[in-house]
């Protein structure tokens, strides 16, 4: 006896103005399975799922849930149909507590107190059942992204979702957090729930899903059983060419000392010490990778080095002392010292999303002599420069008059990288270079970073992706609670050891 698919989409099309985000897409997902969706940035994955969740309205097409045609004009209808969704960009109210976020829209009655009481109990039960522990009274803005994602999942479970959609859930998670997420997903699957998982990480697809669909430029190009495919094959389906899934690099040839950090301490605006006496050095021609669970001080480390934050201690670049608190502690002064910085959050910091691409290629370097003509800025020069960068870094679409926000995440990252790498810095600071970026772009970005190293530049890489750290770094330092736990060579360590160090256990303990 064949059961009806839990979800069936037929002929879904959706256009945003001139952009055809989804073209006649059909898909079937059987109950009790995990279905993966992959595709390049901007392929239309999020759009499709948002339509299923009633966030966007499809221009054409039908939705069937458990064999019955339903209309999902808004999210309320989707929730009623048993669908829950964890968006790529979380839909949480930052200054609300976890509990408040969970009950929002699912309150029982007009007064809050009873709802909160009930939710607190239910949440405790859910937490116990799925190992989804969160502090119900913590404010969202105070908890890490991993926790925030738990809240999103709890929101869906609290609403008794039978179908759970997760859009790039692991983009911001640590390996341990990701592992735990997949354990939970399997639990849910075993309970008969249906899960749709969007991700750029082929390993996750291979490990977690039963079936997988590939999207390209708004179309569904293939749906295959996971057991019958391979990462290489999927990558090719996605990008349309062979993709190198491993970083290909020569051994490092470290040169002179470029960066020396001694006993660096950083206290944040709230008065909490985030970096507690870090010392490290990076030589020319090598990549030092900093591994660590988000929120352990690596962001602050990058910010102080990049001149966005004050600190105490000593930092020397090419033997010269940097100003850590005074007039020359700003980002501009850092750039003058040959430090380039690819920030962790490209949308909040690295780019002005409303600026055109060409304007963004001068961001932070607007005082460059090449960009001036008398009192004015030489927009012609900037634009020419931008066109070159966009071409060399293969930014798509290659139109420097588009605003940054209309590029996909991968291409936004390429713009930032082009700007920073082409400055030919002595020291490149890179934070989370491939977060949310598709595999085609990841390959390119990694190549560029390695190429810069091979030119004899020093690179400090911060990433929560252990895989990335392992494959890019020449040396790895692990950060925990504002301290460096120790250093390893990539060849002599593995994810397991690093994972333990990231959890605060020193190498000696293991």
């Amino acid at each position: 006896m064949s059961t009806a698919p839990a979800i069936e989409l037929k002929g879904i099309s959706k256009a945003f103005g001139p952009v055809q985000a989804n073209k006649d897409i059909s898909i079937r997902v059987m109950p009790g399975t995990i279905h993966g969706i992959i595709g390049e940035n901007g392929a239309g994955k999020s759009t499709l799922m948002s339509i299923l969740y009633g966030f966007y309205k499809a221009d054409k097409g039908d939705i069937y849930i458990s064999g019955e045609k339903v209309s999902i004009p808004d999210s309320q209808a989707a929730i009623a149909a048993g669908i829950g969704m964890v968006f790529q960009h979380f839909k949480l109210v930052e200054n609300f507590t976890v509990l408040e976020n969970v009950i929002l829209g699912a309150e029982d009655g007009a007064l809050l107190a009873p709802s909160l009481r009930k939710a607190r109990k239910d949440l405790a039960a859910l937490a116990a059942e799925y190992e989804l522990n969160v502090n119900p009274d913590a404010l969202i803005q105070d908890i890490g992204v991993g926790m925030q994602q738990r809240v999103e999942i709890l929101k869906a479970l609290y609403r008794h979702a039978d179908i759970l959609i997760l859009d790039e859930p692991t983009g911001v998670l640590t390996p341990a957090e990701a592992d735990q997420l997949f354990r939970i997903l399997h639990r849910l699957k075993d309970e008969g729930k249906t899960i749709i998982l969007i991700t750029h990480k082929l390993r996750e697809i291979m490990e977690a899903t039963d079936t997988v669909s590939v999207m390209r430029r708004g179309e569904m190009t293939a749906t295959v059983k996971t057991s019958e495919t391979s990462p290489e094959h999927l990558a090719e389906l996605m990008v349309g060419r062979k993709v190198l899934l491993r970083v290909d690099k020569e051994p490092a040839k470290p040169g002179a000392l470029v960066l020396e950090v001694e006993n660096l301490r950083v206290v944040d605006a709230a008065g909490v010490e985030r970096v507690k006496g870090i010392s490290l050095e990076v030589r020319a021609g090598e990549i030092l990778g900093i591994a660590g669970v988000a929120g352990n001080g690596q962001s602050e480390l990058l910010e102080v080095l990049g001149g966005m934050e004050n600190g105490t201690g000593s930092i020397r670049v090419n033997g010269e002392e940097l100003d850590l608190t005074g007039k020359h502690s700003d980002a501009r002064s850092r750039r003058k010292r040959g430090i380039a910085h690819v920030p962790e959050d490209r949308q909040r910091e690295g780019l002005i999303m409303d600026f055109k691409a060409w304007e963004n290629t001068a961001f932070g370097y607007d005082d460059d002599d090449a960009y001036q003509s008398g009192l004015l800025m030489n927009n012609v020069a900037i634009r020419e420069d931008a066109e070159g960068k966009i071409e060399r870094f293969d930014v798509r679409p290659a139109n420097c008059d588009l605003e940054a926000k209309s590029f996909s995440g991968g291409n936004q990252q390429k713009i930032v990288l082009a700007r920073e790498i082409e400055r030919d810095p002595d020291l490149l600071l890179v934070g989370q270079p491939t977060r949310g970026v598709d595999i085609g772009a990841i390959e390119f970005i990694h190549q560029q970073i390695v190429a810069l190293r091979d030119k004899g530049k020093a690179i400090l890489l911060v990433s929560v992706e252990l895989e990335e750290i392992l494959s890019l770094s020449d040396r790895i330092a692990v950060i925990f609670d504002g301290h460096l736990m120790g250093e390893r060579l990539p060849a002599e360590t593995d994810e397991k050891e690093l994972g333990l160090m990231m959890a605060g256990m020193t190498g000696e303990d293991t």
Partner: protein
Amino acid sequence: MDYLTILQILDSALRLATPLLFACLAGLFSERAGIFDIGLEGKMLMAAFFSAATAYSTGSVWLGLLAGIAGSLVLSGIHGLASITFRGNQLISGVAINFLASGLTVLIGLSWFKLGGQTPALQGDARFQGLDLPFAEALSGVPVFGPLYSEVLSGHTILVYVALLCVPLTWYVLFRTRFGLRLRAVGENPAAVDTAGISVVGLRYAAVAICGVLCGLAGAYLATGLGASFVKEMTAGRGYIALAALIFAKWRPWYALYATFLFGLLEAISNRYPSLDLGFVTLPSQFMQALPYILTVVILAGFVGKATPPRAGGEPYVKER
């Protein structure tokens, strides 16, 4: 300054603070839901006119109050249409509403009463009368507290007490009810509300409507509580002061009470001391009149930290572009 003077100043401050408090809470509801409103002034003015006009025509201040609220609600509707339905610029809409009210009130007033845009003076039941709180007489003899109760708290029109009650009520609604939770959420992150299956548009209209009702009360208080007729432009910038108070209060109900009371108090003091002889120099009346504003700036700079507005404030909610 003797105790009696202090009491009198406090009494005056309470009266002066009331319209500001209503308007400030009105703005609070609207802005908490993410709709900025610099049209408080216009809505108050509209309400002042319609409450006075109706109270005069019907002889009932209560009908006047309803009409005032209705007048203010119409403008709220326009603001909602422009800024929620059509996702227009909320500031422009507010500016337009202020102009609209200042022109319309006089135009309609001219054609109804032929008194130069003013309404005839209200008498008897067409205006709110002072209420004596229970035991005001009896307690007035009690030292210190007695006069405070009978002089300062007692004897105001009912709207003053309504305004004061609105503070805990607003707090309760915002922080203890489902509606309040959703309202605050929609001002912080409308997408969260939307994906939780709640209508962003509906919530925002509700907030804007509440704003209209409260502005209606503010305007009615001016024309039928404190005053006894409508005079053109009689709001005299109070909507802007309420807006300042709202920011001062960091969008919180109790702080709104303190902020508006502070404004009332400073104005009462400058009323009481039109020019101040300090012995070595006499502060001119202009200085005393500017004093509330100067002190506001000083207090703001010295004691009040950064105020973070609701995150989604001022931005229309756009899903697709």
